[in-house]
């Protein structure tokens, strides 16, 4: 494995999820990447760009704020290439994420739960510079570019027409990059964000001045945003297992819930929805067992996208 085997993930049709008979929903299964998430794409793109520019070389020390998947993907590459890796991570992510990061040799700096990813970003910014190189997924053009050059064309290779694309909103890189690629093929395509069900977890944001819109995300470049409650993402995560045989994480459940909602507004056509990771890293949340309400309570205090 040389770190280059990212992308070319399967695109499968979901047979039981669309509420509209003439609307087909196709799912892009991103856990078929080396560390099991869509973030292998941007980690490779950002690191390769930084190496080509000479910003990262032998003995480099990478620093990245991440709620998990980007950190894991970067940690793997750092390990392979002999760099040091520090991940600034909100304390309230599922424990599996921290364990995987440590397995890949990353050092962790935990930031207070109540500030969420916004807090991890702010803290990483105070540490950047000096000996650290921060690739910074939230502001790095190689993030959307990885999707513009990879994910988007992969979809277009398999489907001659796409009417809507749905993905979760984290950095915005997926929506921007895939959106731009799909729009070139069909200017009428709707690019739709699934707003993660996170409000309750970030209970301590002191003021709205600490709200954050990632520099790579242009809100005017999407066509709609669907709010997905934690309960709805849990229910869809379970439906994907029971009805489609797909073992996915809760952010995939949220994205598919939003895709089904968008399908309910269409009469015919094709939707592609991106499923960022699988269920393995969420077993500790008990997502697949017990009643939905108790899972919602447990997930409500955790960051999982």
């Amino acid at each position, binding site marked *: 494995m040389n770190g280059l085997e990212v992308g070319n993930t399967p695109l499968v049709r979901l047979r039981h999820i669309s509420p509209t008979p003439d609307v087909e929903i196709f799912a892009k299964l991103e856990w078929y990447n080396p560390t099991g998430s869509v*973030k292998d794409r941007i980690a490779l793109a950002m690191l390769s760009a930084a190496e080509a520019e000479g910003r990262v070389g032998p003995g480099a020390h990478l620093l990245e704020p*991440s*709620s998990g*998947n*980007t950190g894991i993907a970067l940690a793997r590459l750092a390990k392979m290439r002999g760099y040091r890796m520090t991940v600034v991570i909100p304390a309230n992510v599922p424990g599996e994420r921290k364990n995987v990061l440590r397995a890949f040799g990353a050092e962790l700096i935990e930031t207070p739960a109540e500030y*969420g*990813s*916004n807090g991890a*970003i702010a803290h990483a910014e105070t540490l950047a510079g000096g000996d650290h190189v921060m690739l910074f*997924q*939230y502001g790095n053009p190689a993030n959307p570019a990885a999707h513009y050059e990879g994910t988007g064309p992969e979809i277009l290779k398999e489907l001659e027409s796409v009417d809507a694309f749905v993905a*979760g*909103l*984290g*950095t915005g*890189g997926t929506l921007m990059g895939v959106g731009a690629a799909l729009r070139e093929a069909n200017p009428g395509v709707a690019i739709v964000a699934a*707003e*993660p069900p*996170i*409000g*309750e977890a*970030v*209970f*301590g*944001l*002191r*003021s*709205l*001045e600490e*709200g*954050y*819109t*990632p520099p790579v995300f242009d*809100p005017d470049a*999407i*066509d*709609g*945003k*669907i*709010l*997905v*409650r934690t309960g709805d993402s849990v229910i869809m995560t379970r439906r994907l297992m029971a009805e489609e045989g797909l073992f996915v994480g809760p*952010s995939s459940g949220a994205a598919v819930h939003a895709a089904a*909602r968008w399908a309910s507004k269409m009469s015919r056509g094709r939707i592609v929805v991106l499923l960022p990771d699988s269920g393995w890293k969420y077993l500790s949340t008990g997502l697949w067992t017990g009643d939905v309400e108790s899972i919602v309570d447990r997930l409500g205090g955790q*960051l999982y*996208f």
Partner: protein
Amino acid sequence: MNDQSVQVRIPTVMRPLVGGEKVIPATGATVRAIVADIGGRHAGLAERILDKDGELHRFVNVFVGDEDVRYLDGLDTPVPAGTEISIIPAVAGG
């Protein structure tokens, strides 16, 4: 309760302005009217939702049902009776 009555979900950061409530009732036919209504009853609340030009604050997302009003008609988005409005601060993931 009249026929324009809706429920508004308040984010944690704004709950101190509404006596700690998670959900408050409001009346109005548009998002603008709803914000004016709750802003009139809870000092400081409208200033947290709108910027100084009276537009939606860039770090605040307002949803009518499950749809972000930025992609509907903004503050002029109609609010059907019985709808739930959610005010949610912008946060990142990844």
